[in-house]
């Protein structure tokens, strides 16, 4: 043991002497190299955080095996109950991407990819938190993705219905929106109640859930929608009626397996 200790000290002294003899320039360069290596390790062990929203979004695209898509814009979500406060919208030609994230923690995100419904695609922001129980107010952003650059104004009619605790709700929402960014129109549906949201909250929640892809329960839900697009002169350039279905609903419809 003592000999081992002596050998170790001897070895250490040799290392120290050798290090003393190394020119200062070489020492500094070795330190810089070590700093680069340590920084890389730190970055890896910290989970390789992204530095910008776009960088994080591009990584999420790859992780979800979708895209690359053109980023259309970002919408601020004002729902106090939601985990996410921003919605980034993108279009890859075949489908649209709704990317929910937190502005103060960009690593916290949820990406939803939906195939296009044709020339226009109607979807709500697929927030996970759009449950209405115990809430007095709910706001659901609705998006109409379009490929009609001449259109500057859009009208959307949505027929929502739901039954909750014996309460029947059926309403046709007529909404209007002006173009702010190319690629989509943004609408918003707000509902409020003096005590607690009932069937209307359920209907809006269903719209948001159907727009995402985690709710296979909504396989039979088909929400009718009509979109009308108008150009600057006020002339109608496009009109279409369609159904908003869940991913499961679309798949079963395509295979003719719906109940």
């Amino acid at each position, binding site marked *: 043991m003592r000999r081992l200790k002596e050998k170790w000290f001897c070895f250490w002294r040799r290392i120290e002497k050798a290090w003393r003899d190394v020119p*200062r*320039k070489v*020492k*500094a360069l070795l*330190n*810089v190299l*070590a*700093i680069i290596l*340590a*920084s890389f*390790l*730190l970055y*890896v*062990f*910290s*989970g*390789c955080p*992204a530095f910008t929203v776009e960088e994080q979004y591009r*990584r*999420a695209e*790859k*992780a*979800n*095996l*979708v*895209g690359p898509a053109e980023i259309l814009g970002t919408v601020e979500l004002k729902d106090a109950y939601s985990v996410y406060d921003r919605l980034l919208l993108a279009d*890859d030609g*075949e*489908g649209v991407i709704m990317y929910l994230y937190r502005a103060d923690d960009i690593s916290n995100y949820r*990406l939803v*990819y939906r*195939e296009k419904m044709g020339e226009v695609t109607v979807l709500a922001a697929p927030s996970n938190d759009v449950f209405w129980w115990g809430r007095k107010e709910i706001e659901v952003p609705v998006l109409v993705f379009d490929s009609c650059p001449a259109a500057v104004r859009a009208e959307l009619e949505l027929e929502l219905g739901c039954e909750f605790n014996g309460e029947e709700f059926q309403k046709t929402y007529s909404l209007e929106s002006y173009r702010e960014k190319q690629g989509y129109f943004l609408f918003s549906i707000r509902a409020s109640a003096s005590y607690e949201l009932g069937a209307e909250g359920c209907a809006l929640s269903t719209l948001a859930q159907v727009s995402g*892809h*985690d709710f*296979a*329960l909504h*396989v039979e839900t088909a929400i009718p929608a009509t979109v009308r697009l108008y150009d600057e002169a006020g002339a109608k350039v496009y009109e279409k009626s369609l159904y908003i279905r869940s*991913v*499961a*609903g*679309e*798949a*079963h419809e395509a*295979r003719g*397996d719906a*109940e």
Partner: protein
Amino acid sequence: MDNYEFEYWCNVAVRCIKYRPDRQEVKKELYEHLEDRYDSYLAQGMKPEEAQDKAMQSMGSPEAIAPQLAAIHRPFWGYLLDVSKWVLAGLTCVTVIAMLRYRSQLFISEPMYPSYNPYTDTYYQEENYACRRIMYDEPDCTAYSDGYTFTLSRVAWWREFDESEAEQGDDDYFFFQIEVTNPRPWAEYENMSRWFRAEDSLGNYYYNGNESAYSYDLEVNGNFYRTGLFTYTQDMWFRNFSSQDAEWIDLHYDRAGRDIVLRIGLTGGGEK
């Protein structure tokens, strides 16, 4: 240093050297030179004060030497060494903390099988029923997309028996594993096992986990977990497995313009 004249001379000579350790070192060296000369003049028989003046004169004017010494001893590498030492020490501490905090990035997760490991066990018995593995294979079928490599590494087909050991062909369970690797440490991976659908040689269609809605739907589903710094494993299975007579099942990921196909052969595997 007890000769104040020499020390003053040295201080003037090194005052332009910016890097303090260099300044001290050069000062010490100059002082030693002065002392050597002083000693040699004393040995030649000079008086101490005379020898001191002569030693300083022989070294030249300290004001003239100062800029020359500063030009030789530039401070850049010294400062770089000092700063890099502290930065490296700090960074090492932070890296160790990060390693401890984010050790989940390093350590491998264990798969969670309900009662038996379908790939290593061959038989499992409970009170009312027993299961036997009837096929095991390592197909090593590979596909690539978006920088990820998908490898179908293991498949296992299990059949349930009743108490009398009679086969019940409709209670079959089919498990398979897909290894997903990406050499970029910053590459993330989501649970794509819920987006794989399947079709067998008989035309049976298995919905993917996000599309399947009814209890009678044939379905592909799975979990995923990290199994290494660059590897994820998708532990997958078929629900309502109905391909007993099929030759193969093709797994498809055909969303967003991708076309990942992995084929599971059902006729090989030895144990069947």
